[in-house]
């Protein structure tokens, strides 16, 4: 069994379906909701919100800071060149390089975290192109055979045409 899901025309029906799935024993981790746009007006739109992305961005920024300072220090001391009496390792100009690499590190870390945590580029278990037309997909991936009848009933009760992928 790959998945069982229903397609809903509006957010209220989709919310009902999510609630019924919970009542049927499905946990939030098992429930998949797919929409054509973010739908934070509904409770289901705020599921799976917790993320470490800000921390990873900070870590990327710190890595960039260290790279900027390291690059400037290593290169300037490896070929000490007197420029207008400035110190060989001058803080003021090096702050610019350090700042740019800090931001670059944060930006790249954010993009990488997005790709990994949103599971982009991986083969999906199930999907329905009707989502692009505005339908809201609510379903459960890989349910045990024994639970399918209950899940199907829960999805159908919220007013959807239920589909089962085997």
């Amino acid at each position, binding site marked *: 069994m790959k998945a069982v899901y229903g397609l809903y*025309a*509006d957010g209220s029906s989709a919310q009902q379906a999510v609630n019924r799935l919970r009542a049927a024993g499905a946990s939030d981790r098992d429930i*998949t*909701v*797919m*929409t*054509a*746009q*973010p*739908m934070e*007006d509904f409770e*289901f*739109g705020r*599921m*799976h*919100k917790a*993320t470490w*992305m*800000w921390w990873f*961005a900070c870590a990327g*920024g710190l890595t960039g800071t260290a790279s900027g300072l390291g*690059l*400037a220090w290593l*290169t*300037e001391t*490896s*070929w000490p*060149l007197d*420029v207008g009496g400035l110190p060989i390792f*001058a803080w003021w*100009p*090096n702050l*610019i*390089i350090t*700042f*740019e*690499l800090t*931001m*670059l590190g*944060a*930006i*790249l870390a*954010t*993009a990488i*975290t*997005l*790709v990994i*945590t*949103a*599971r*982009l*580029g*991986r*083969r*999906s278990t199930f*999907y329905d192109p009707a*989502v*692009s*037309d*505005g339908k809201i997909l609510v379903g459960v991936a890989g349910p045990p055979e024994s639970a399918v009848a209950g899940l199907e009933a829960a999805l159908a009760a919220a007013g959807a045409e239920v589909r089962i992928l085997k």
Partner: protein
Amino acid sequence: MTHPSHPRINSDLLRPLLQTSWRFYLLVALFGSIVVAALASWMTQMYLGFGISGIRWPVYWGFYVTSFVFWIGISHAGTLISAILRLVNAGWRRPVTRCAEVITVFALMIGAMFPIIHLGRPWLAFWLFPYPSERQIWPNFRSPLVWDFFAINTYLAGSVLFLLLPMIPDFAVVRDKSTGLRRRIYGILALGWRGTTKQWHRLETAMQIMAVAIIPVAVSVHTVVSFDFSMAPVPMWQSTIFGPYFVAGAIFSGIAALLIAMAVLRRFLHLERYLHPVHFENLGKLLLVMALLWGYFVFNERLVVYYGNEPSEMAVFWRTQRESFAPLYWTMVVCNFVVPLVLMGIRWFRTITGCVIASACVVVGMWLERFLIIVPSLGHKYLPYSYGIYRPQPVEIIIAGSTFAAMALLYVLFAKVVPIISIWELKAGEHTPPDLIPPATEEHPLGELHL
């Protein structure tokens, strides 16, 4: 029932991708031939040498560096404005952001070409990169030109990602709506996007972080470009006001470019339903604010030099105020200050046509501003042996002029392969609580948009 506007949004915004008219080929041929002519000119310059340009002692920075600063300034249209509007959650930003972000990426690419064109031997451009060469000679990190390299590349990388990431859900829509080879290509570009709640949260968080990071980077880019000038002992260049003056000018020219691009897209792709007069009016107000800010900076710069009364600075000052460069200077003032003030200050003129006229003037005025910062000062430094005249030659005029065609060509090609208005953001904007949306009118079929 499914939201009634979603299929319509899909079909309106995917139409330019799925249908190709003869006008597309005509535009590509027209702009493409101009770009080819510019490439031929550049090849000629490389083959015959830099002597065929007008760049010679003492004016070593002419049209090329003017165009470099101008295009880097134009690049502030997109990512910076889009990031600010995203952070303040301005609802009216939704149809505008992608049009703007594209300008940033292409303008940066074009701008970054000029330091390479400006090199007599462009194949040695890699000497600017911090790579471990055989003799361990590294770029001098105390040089503003190396700061440029880091700042522009950081901004370019950030802007490309800022543009690319929100395109993924739209690639998924194209994937679902197309067939054959197109479906396969967009399927790859969509990276398996399904629109799960987790994916939406991650995307929105990523866009928030990027918006926070990209704003200071954008400000730093044009500040660093201004350092190319203000760190040099040249009359009227060594000024502490150059950083914010350049940033303000960049945002000013960027908004103007965005208004022109939006008007063209609205007209030719029939996007009247999405790009409303209210978008032009709001951006027109921003243009007015920036015109006033620009006027404030110019007044500051001029007044301080005038009171300083330093002979070499006053010589450059009078060259621009009432001598050989005066016609260009006063044209700049009219284009950058008088026209936007009148057209954007009086509500009756703040129409789409008014915005386009004011923006076209600002684009011309800002190019002149860059030229007038560079050439009069370099042609009249401290001692008479360093006085000289700059006469731009055909090769420079062709290359500098063709960049506008290059921008148009890249824009036309982009609009052909990517929805120029973010489909998912537009749909998300329609989920505003109904009591906040006033009834739709014939003029605004989506209802009035909120700030």
